[in-house]
């Protein structure tokens, strides 16, 4: 519980209107995009500028009160659920584009800016900001940075971390630091910029970011390949890369997903296919033509049943529909949709999908898999019902085994959604005990009183690895 004196100090900083502790505000900041998690904060605060954030942190540090920075709360790892109470700091009011530097091709923005608004704005200036998480219409730059979000273009263009070149952040004690800058080269000291990207609100509050922009590709072309043989699809992915072609997008849908999507969007997809690959290349017209032709050959040589290449943008959009409807279709199937995020080396995609299907069948749960095949980032998605405790328990067990399987195949427990609350018990599987200790040391240096997003990333107890039974 937060003492009244703390509340009045916070009110004094932002004004009565921007500090709230009524039931309505507490309830609406007790959850995020992660299913089934809820916990109430003691108050919600909306800072307007860095100075206010700094003043707020000084008060919270003095009273050892926890604080959760929040963008739009779309994360899927429980990252903004205030499990230890305290203050939720909503960054929405800090949403300005401070500068677009057309000479250096950089932009400096505040963290509460909605990603889509930002990318639309720079596109209007003839520039390109590639990170495109599926949630970009509502997620914020700050949230993207804190989670190091990726998207459909990750394979060719990289993820958020590749575009953050400078940050302003407020530390737990209220000090303001600046890291990096407009420099493309900078090796002065540890790279704190990269450290803060993906830090999930546990190290500092990001208050400003300088982002790299690039020239937009001239054209793009889309194609769809369908396989009865999962390995054929997987081999296609590896072979495309082997041939030194890096598509802008290389997406994957498994058979259960194809069925659900077709039932929903009536696209006439063949239901006996084991996998679909959706491929997009962009760049100079000649390169695009050549790459797409080559990719089509590779697909055919790997026994694709059908390959369709879009003649124009409109047809391209139609092909994309399958991928785009996947989430919507799955979300409508059952009341609760749990979208997970395991990643394996791309050569292991087929094995991973088979393992997921086997695990789902064994636990009698429905798990459909789709994702970014090009970078090995799969989204096994369970459709279930939060009210069925027994089923939920089986889903949780299945996911535990899926993470285990990913690690065994040389993969990781999350490719883009972050660790947060949900994956914390599994982090040690990936980075080992020594790795955890190292990270704890870093956390201690930044946040000695553990007030920044406590309970996240580091679990009280790590999960024991389960023994995976194959087949």
């Amino acid at each position: 519980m937060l003492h009244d004196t703390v509340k009045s100090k916070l009110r004094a900083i932002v004004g009565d209107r921007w500090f709230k502790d009524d039931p309505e505000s507490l309830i609406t900041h007790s959850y995020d995009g992660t299913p089934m998690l809820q916990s109430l904060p003691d108050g919600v605060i909306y800072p307007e500028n860095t100075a206010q954030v700094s003043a707020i942190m000084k008060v919270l540090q003095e009273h050892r009160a926890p604080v959760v920075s929040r963008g739009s709360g779309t994360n899927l790892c429980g990252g903004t659920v205030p499990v230890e109470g305290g203050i939720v700091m909503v960054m929405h009011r800090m949403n300005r584009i401070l500068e677009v530097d057309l000479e250096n091709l950089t932009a400096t923005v505040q963290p509460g800016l909605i990603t889509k608004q930002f990318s639309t704005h720079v596109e209007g200036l003839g520039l390109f900001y590639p990170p495109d998480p599926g949630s970009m219409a509502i997620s914020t730059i700050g949230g993207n940075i804190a989670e190091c979000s990726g998207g459909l273009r990750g394979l060719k263009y990289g993820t958020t971390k590749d575009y953050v070149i400078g940050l302003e952040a407020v530390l737990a004690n209220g000090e303001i630091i600046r890291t990096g800058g407009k420099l493309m080269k900078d090796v002065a000291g540890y790279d704190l910029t990269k450290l803060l990207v993906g830090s999930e609100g546990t190290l500092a509050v990001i208050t400003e970011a300088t982002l790299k922009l690039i020239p937009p590709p001239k054209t793009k072309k889309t194609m769809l390949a369908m396989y009865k043989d999962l390995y054929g699809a997987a081999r296609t992915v590896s072979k495309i890369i082997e041939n030194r072609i890096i598509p802008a997008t290389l997406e994957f849908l498994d058979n259960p997903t194809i069925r659900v999507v077709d039932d929903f969007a009536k696209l006439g997809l063949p239901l006996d296919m084991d996998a679909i690959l959706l491929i997009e290349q962009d760049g100079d017209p000649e390169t695009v033509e050549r790459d797409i032709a080559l990719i089509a050959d590779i697909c055919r040589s790997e026994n694709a049943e059908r390959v369709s290449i879009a003649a124009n943008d409109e047809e391209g959009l139609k092909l994309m529909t399958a991928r785009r409807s996947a989430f919507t279709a799955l979300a409508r199937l059952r009341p609760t949709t749990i979208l997970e995020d395991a990643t394996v080396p791309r050569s292991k995609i087929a094995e991973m999908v088979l393992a997921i299907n086997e695990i789902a069948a064994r636990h009698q749960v429905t798990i459909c898999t789709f994702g970014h095949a090009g970078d090995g980032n799969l989204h096994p998605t369970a459709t279930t019902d939060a009210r069925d405790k027994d089923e939920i328990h089986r889903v949780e067990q299945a996911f535990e085994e899926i993470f285990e399987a990913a690690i065994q195949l040389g993969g990781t427990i999350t490719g883009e959604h972050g660790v947060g609350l949900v994956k914390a018990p599994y982090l040690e599987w990936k980075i080992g005990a020594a790795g955890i200790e190292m990270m704890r040391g870093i956390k201690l240096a930044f946040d000695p009183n553990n007030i920044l997003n406590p309970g996240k990333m580091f679990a009280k107890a790590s999960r024991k690895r389960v023994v995976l039974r194959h087949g």
Partner: protein
Amino acid sequence: MANSLASMLEAKNGGGSCSELAATLKNTLDYDQLTNCMRCGFCLPACPTFRETGIEAESPRGRIALMKAVADGLMDPDYAFETQMNHCLGCRACEPACPADVKYGQLLEQARDSVERHTVNHRWWVKLARKTAFDGVFPHQGRMRFLGGALQAYQRSGLRKLVRGSGLLKLFPKHMEQMERILPDASYRGVLEQMGSLHRAAGERVGTVGLFRGCIMDVLFTETNKHTVELLNAAGFDVVIPDTQNCCGALHAHSGEQAGAKELAKRNIAAFRAAGVDWIVSNAGGCGALLVEYDHLLHDEPEWAEGAAWFAKRTLDVSKLLVEHGRLQASAAAAVAAGKTQATAPSCGGSCGSGISFASADKVRITYQDSCHLRNVMRSPEAPRKLMRSVANAEFVELYESDRCCGSAGIYNLTQPDMAGQILDHKMDHVKRTEAHYLLTSNPGCLLQMKLGIEKHGMSGRMQAVHLVDFLHERLCKTEH
């Protein structure tokens, strides 16, 4: 976790027992729908109140979370809860945006219905006004007519001049005063009284249409109803106006008066069934949206299931009926099909095949504000646009964010003037930029709000707000068979 949440909140609220309202809400709210919301946040960018405030509680996800918290017993619905339910425009832009297909509109109606039954927060005169309107006036066509007559008398007699001149209006809140100014001339005699009940198709008959005349529509926009009949006749439809029909019940349903809405629905179903029509057509998005949901409205009354389904299935907006079934002249139909920006023929001179087409005498620029309910509930954003694009000599320009609510939302602009005004101001900035001569709409509420916006922003000299039907009717260029 749920229990600890409840006790935490109780501690925060200083205890407090579960109120009658909480109990009603628990029984009324559809728990399946509440569970279906997966809190992904996709609906947030679509929501006008979230956009104006940036506050989670002012978003669909936030409002659903509040309802769920009440249903879960985590929160007692307090004054803030009621206020939040009333802040929602009911524009339902959140529904098409939702991947999980959460029926937000239904949840909102359920919440408001419970709130209405228990609220202690309305002042006595609001209660009286609501009771008069919902029980005393809207359900009765005759009384509606009478009010229309009274308004007409006020407008025609010197009284209006006197009132406007006297400064008496200054006693009312500013938004009421503005409303009085843009109110069109009311009419005591509605479409049925003026035209009679049956109207034959010109030429070969495509089918029979029952016209839903609406209540406000028929009092304030009788001409639009008449024009609708004439347009439909020209396009090949027999039109019947059943005289026992009444108010659709939308204002009731959206304000939490479910029982009243259901009674009205039943009477309408009976009226149109007796008339034996192929389609039921509405020219007011707000009414149409409830008409197509009569099956949902009456879902807990099995004896009405069949009739309600019959009714819901054949109800559609006049624009959609014209585009999909109407006899359009070949060139107009081609323009409609191709979605052409501008038809080329300046006029059709009377010799170009059968069916109707539209041409403007002067070159005009037109734009369109969607009716939220036509777009988000009847899900028909394309038909009006196709018709506008088919008008020769008219250039259609898309209004930026035309899919966003204009702030009218039933009686919202009267009950929540601040938020409505703010939304309207943003809207008018975009409208100004279209430099259109005509701002077309498909719903009386939106039309009034747009008229208000044009007046408020000093654009009256340059631009008029007009119902799409009236615009088309005036430019109807050919009916040869």
